């Protein structure tokens, strides 16, 4: 059975770093790797949605966390999923100090650029996961 790499971003609504993760996820799933990735909303995992749980179980999952609580990573694991790679906005920001994210509903220039950096890294990781043997649609 073919599977896409699942991306689960932070659900921190109203949080700048959460917005960065979601923006990065959209860029990967809609623009950079639309054929090989899919997003599962963290909120559905938290609510115990059966479809969301099934999607992360048995798939290679990339999580993106906005803060050290790491809700995306924790909830994927609690749902029975295996996290292939966890990205955090804080680590990306530390590597790119000039890209300071601001804004919530609309990211500033730095936030958008940081989201792009994350998106590019996730696209690269997706390629590596697929090359490692994961079939995809």
């Amino acid at each position, binding site marked *: 059975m073919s599977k896409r790499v699942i991306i689960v971003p932070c659900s921190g609504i109203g949080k700048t*770093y959460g917005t960065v993760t979601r923006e990065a996820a959209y860029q990967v799933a809609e623009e950079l790797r639309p054929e090989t990735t899919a997003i599962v909303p963290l909120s559905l995992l938290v609510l115990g949605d059966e479809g969301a749980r099934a999607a992360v179980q048995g798939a290679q999952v990339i999580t993106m966390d906005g*803060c050290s609580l790491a809700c995306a990573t924790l909830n994927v694991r609690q749902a029975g999923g295996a996290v292939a790679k966890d990205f955090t906005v804080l680590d990306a920001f*530390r590597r790119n*100090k000039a890209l*300071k994210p601001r804004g919530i509903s609309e990211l500033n220039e730095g936030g958008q650029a940081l989201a792009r950096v994350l998106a590019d890294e996730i696209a690269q990781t997706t390629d590596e996961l697929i090359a490692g043997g994961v079939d995809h649609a």
Partner: protein
Amino acid sequence: MSSEFLETTVDKFIFRVKVGYLYNEAGVWVAYDPAHGTARVGLTDFRQQASGDVAFVDLPAVGTQVAAGGDLVNIETIKVDLTVPAPFGGEVVAVNKGLDETPELINQAPYGDGWLVELKPEQWPAEGLLDAPAYLAVMQAQAEAEAAQ
């Protein structure tokens, strides 16, 4: 509760205050070492939790003279840019270089490995510092005010 710390819960958050340290109302702790005449300085558990995950720390150079209330350390977190005021006047005699590589120590061990600088006070005891029970009361009021926002 450990006798090493006082503790209070506000909303869903637990904040600890280390017994034996001194504090100012800005959330800076001071641990004076009478053997060396220096004091180690850091951020309280409440202030680090309220400020969020630390991304960068800008420490002063050793030898810098600071005035009481003057800018001591700049901290950039995921929420705020925070300037830590000097709790008293003096000379910076050491800085925590470990924060260059692992600034998250401020979040992980605010009263331990996450210390910021060591100062040689112009005079000791310094004025205006609070003991742990007094700071706990101040901090609880600050935490409740922030929770109500």
